């Protein structure tokens, strides 16, 4: 097996998790930055549409590193998917596959199901709820909670902050409710 073939396999959790954990000290050491991604959405608001709202009146230019960081993530996603991607479709739990099949989802080639998230479905009720509604909840919820998975679950728990534990538990509760109780209705639309 060549190196490229080796790297193209899906990476196991015990490789990916520690690498993500190392981002915490890396950002601290290379410039005193706290790991967090959802703040980038706030900086974009502050830069583009501050609209005289106090929450967006700060010097976003001082936080520009965060925008470089997310630009890097986007580019990394691009490079990995086009150069290093496993050619096989993603392997999912048989129960999930059976459930999704009921809703007509059987394309496993992309990172998101192409049958749900595409420009054509955007103008259907289902597409609007999933893409626009889902995105809104992510943006509103993370800022209301003061952070997302990176800021609370990883950075906050790394620093033993109990409010971050409360936030992380809330994320999981919300996710369980949506995936198990509400999403089946949305996918049936």
């Amino acid at each position, binding site marked *: 097996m060549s190196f490229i073939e080796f790297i193209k396999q899906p990476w196991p959790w015990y490789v*990916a*998790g520690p690498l*993500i954990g190392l981002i915490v000290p890396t950002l601290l050491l290379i*410039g*005193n930055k706290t*790991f967090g*991604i959802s703040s980038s*959405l706030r900086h974009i608001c502050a830069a583009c*549409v501050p*609209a005289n*709202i106090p929450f967006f009146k*700060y010097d976003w230019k001082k*936080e520009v590193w965060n925008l470089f*960081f997310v*630009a*890097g*993530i986007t*580019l*990394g*996603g691009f*490079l*990995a*998917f086009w150069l*290093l991607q496993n050619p096989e479709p993603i392997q*999912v*739990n048989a129960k999930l596959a059976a459930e*999704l099949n009921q809703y007509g989802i059987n394309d496993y080639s992309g*990172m998101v*199901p192409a049958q*749900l*998230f595409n*420009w054509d479905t*955007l103008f259907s009720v289902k597409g609007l*709820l*999933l*893409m626009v509604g889902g*995105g*809104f*909840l*992510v*943006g509103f919820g*993370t800022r*209301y*909670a*003061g952070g997302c*998975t990176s*800021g*609370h679950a*990883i950075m906050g*728990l790394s620093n033993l902050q109990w409010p*971050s534990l*409360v*936030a992380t538990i809330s994320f*999981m509760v*919300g*996710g*369980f409710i949506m*995936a*198990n109780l509400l999403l089946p209705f*949305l996918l049936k639309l």
Partner: protein
Amino acid sequence: MESKDILQETELEKKHHEFLENNTDFEMRSLDSVCFNESELKHPWWYNLKYAAVGLLFGIVFVKAEIISWFRIQEMFRLQSSHMYGVIGSAVVVGLISVLIIKKFKIKTIYGEPIEFVDKKFNKGQIYGGLLFGLGWAITGACPGPLFAQIGSGATAVIVTLLSAIAGTWVYGKVRDRIPH
């Protein structure tokens, strides 16, 4: 000679602490941060490229470990796979050990600035906002970081999701004073 160095060092730390305390800009942002850090140093813009490089590696891990996969997130919330729990759990363990080492040995940044941590304050937003974000996470299969990487991986329609997330953040800023915290 040595004691003079230590004296200078503590003075530097004190100055940095004062800078953090008197920084009013920071007041607004402190709600969001765990760590009380802000660099006082002014650097040319291209110094930020190192954060882009870290982000790039992060984006590659996101794709390669299928963390940005909508399917993996569905499995996580249905308890059908331990993959995501392993990723987040081991990331926290490594982060925790790193923070302990930085604190214990008072490690400084590569520019010699002290690294200081402050405690995060609890407010009810962490519960209400957390629940709302959780609902959105299960729909989109992405937290904010993966949204960027999903777009990079060619799911261009996720641009709409990202724009909507930015709109959600903006609406939060607008109604912030009128919702419980």
